[in-house]
């Protein structure tokens, strides 16, 4: 073992002991992935079901009743009765329901009179626009069925000229979508936030200066400092992987080696970013806030985890190019769900390697210039 490597190894050992001695921090670093997987896995759901609809039936005929019943039949809507005297808009303003269905008098009588003006009105709450859009789609289908139910007819046969195949997630399972993306968020959390914070702490209490005055080379110090966090990040990934496979039944179609490589690249980039933040701020509070803004929020919001990159305005689409989580997200979903290989993912991996190199270079440069008096 070369002396440089030995120094790095002993610093890593010391750092690891340091982490182990503080069981609360360790528990939190390892507990965070558990909590995130539980929350995201069990709570977030993109299948909008049981959308609440307040019913204002001013017609009160068998036809209007079968329309309302048919609307509630498919589990997409939950029809709630309400008092006729109430203003339908108020049920939306007070969050009593997400939509209001108003059936005007004469609906049953004029059912087959094409000249008639609309006899049914649906009011939708637009404040959650994604849900509103999906509810509108549901309603179009449900209303067609409802009208034939009101007429006492059998529902018309499905008359779309298009058949759709959903590839890579054929059951449209929300978990398959969320869990592979979660590895990115957790790596970002451990890599950037924890590193930024712990290294900033050493600057704050002066132990970093002490370490620098020893004959150890700066490169070895950094390598030794960061190694345990890389390991911790890797534990996080391993946990998410196990949960994905064992608890949520997410398939893993691609190569494990490729995935591990991509993880290492991302964790290296993340810890380098954390180090850079800690050197620039040298203070835990600041380091924390900068790490959240530059690390956690982009991993969560700008990486395509939930909000697709392709839908962003042009400027922001190019802006995401400099974010390592954006590339790792594509790789993670690609390898987990699509079985993508090196031939598909080389551009993403290349970008990851490039950003990783830039971040390490930046951190090292900052570290070295700060050493000079």
């Amino acid at each position, binding site marked *: 073992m070369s002396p440089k490597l030995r120094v790095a190894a002993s610093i890593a050992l010391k750092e690891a002991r340091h982490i182990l001695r*503080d069981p609360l*921090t360790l528990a*939190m*670093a390892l*507990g*965070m992935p558990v*909590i995130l997987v539980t*929350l995201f896995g*069990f*709570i977030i*759901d*993109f299948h909008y079901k049981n959308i609440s609809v307040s019913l204002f039936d001013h017609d009160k005929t068998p036809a209007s009743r079968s329309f309302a019943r048919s609307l509630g039949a498919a589990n997409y809507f939950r029809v709630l009765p309400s008092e006729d005297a109430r203003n339908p808009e108020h049920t*939306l*303003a*007070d969050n009593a329901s997400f939509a209001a269905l108003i059936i005007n008098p004469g609906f049953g009588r004029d059912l087959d009179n094409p000249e*008639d003006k*609309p006899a*049914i009105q649906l009011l939708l*709450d*637009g*404040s959650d*626009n*994604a849900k*509103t*859009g*999906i509810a*509108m*789609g549901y309603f179009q289908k449900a209303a067609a069925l409802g009208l034939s139910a009101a007429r006492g007819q059998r529902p*018309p046969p499905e008359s*779309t*000229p*298009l*058949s*759709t*195949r*959903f*590839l*890579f*997630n054929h059951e*449209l399972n929300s978990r398959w*979508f969320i869990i592979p993306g979660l590895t990115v968020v957790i790596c970002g959390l451990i890599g950037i936030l924890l590193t930024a914070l712990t290294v900033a702490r050493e600057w704050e*209490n002066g132990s970093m200066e002490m370490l620098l005055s020893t004959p150890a080379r700066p490169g070895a110090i950094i390598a030794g400092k960061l190694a345990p966090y890389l390991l911790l990040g890797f534990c996080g990934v391993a946990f998410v992987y196990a949960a994905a496979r064992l608890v949520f039944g997410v398939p893993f179609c691609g190569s494990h080696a490729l995935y591990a490589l991509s993880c290492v690249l991302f964790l290296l980039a993340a810890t380098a970013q954390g180090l850079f933040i800690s050197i620039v*701020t040298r203070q*835990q*509070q*600041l380091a*924390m*806030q900068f790490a*959240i803004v530059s690390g956690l*929020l982009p991993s969560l919001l*700008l990486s*395509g985890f939930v*909000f*697709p990159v392709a*839908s962003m*305005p042009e400027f922001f689409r190019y802006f995401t190019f400099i974010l390592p989580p954006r590339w790792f997200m*594509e790789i993670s979903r*690609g390898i987990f769900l699509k*079985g993508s290989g090196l031939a*598909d993912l080389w551009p993403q991996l290349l970008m990851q390697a490039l950003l990783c190199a830039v971040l390490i270079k930046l951190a090292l440069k900052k570290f070295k210039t700060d050493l000079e008096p």
Partner: protein
Amino acid sequence: MSFILLKGFFKKELTQALRDKRMRLLIFALPAIQLTIFGFALKTEVRNVRLAVQGRADDALLQRVARRAYASGYFVPAETGADWLAALRSGKAEAVLAGPVNGTLAERMDRDAAPLQLLLDASNMQRAQQLETYMAQIAAQELAEYSGHGRAPPAPSKISVRVLYNPALDSAIFMVPAVMCLVLCVITIILTAMALAREKEIGTFETIISAPLSNTEILSGKTLPYVLIGLADVPIILGVAELLFRVPIRGPLWELGAASAVFVFTTVAIGTVISTFAKNQQQAMMASFLFMFPAILLSGVMFPVENIPDAFKILAHINPLKYFVTLLRGIMLKDMALQSFVFNLSCMAALSAAAVAMAVLRFRQKLN
């Protein structure tokens, strides 16, 4: 509690928090920047779907369907080459519209049940679901126009749909209150928790305790400046929301002020409680996250929580974020009724009182 004492405390805390230029930037400029970035970038609308077309070169009708799709604004052209599956796998295309193989679309459309096929990358299942709806409509319309008779589903003209509060279904109107919640939460909880933990860590806390001050004086002197800092962010954020995103404020401003004040009180109290458990700043930060992640996720501020399991439902009711975001959306977009404003505000105030009580209790325990 003497006023002069409190003033001194305020001055010292605010000077300390705002002394660093980077900290000032962080507290006052960053919320505005974040709101701008996330407000513009985060879109839930489907756009720029890379759609490739597979079929016979002489299939004019298929090309018409494709052109209609590209003209709709949802789709952009993509090339697949021969192997469409590889294109989907590498992400070159997100959707492939495939025409019939044994003839042109015009020939097959009356013979096959579904002559057109849409192959979708469903790894983002939410987007895939929306895509399917759009493409089905586009195809049905184009084919109906071509044949001139009713293959299209009968348009239910009996029915009118009206979207209230956000008729253009603009994402920003949804995002802006959400980001406001997030930013306030991150700033106040973490800043408070870490500032107090820091004093413990470097030992200045001992000095204050040994000074002739009552517990209440120390507690309020230490925490109220952060309430002030949090509240100072509210007009900044609202200004950006109004100027850049034209998010309406339909309700009275005092309601917005009252809701923000109660919320910031709650979050600062929560930050204080967290700091009493933490030995150092690192633990304070971790514990803040342990609170914030569930709080943010369970509130439905940004991510959909349609089918929360029953076990988590109780947590949703003791979540101050849920009430705050309901109030924000209610006041800004819906001009909510006074009655439901009062209800949501009192729920949040009750939680706030509980948090403050707990902070006082924990604080006293720690000091004695």
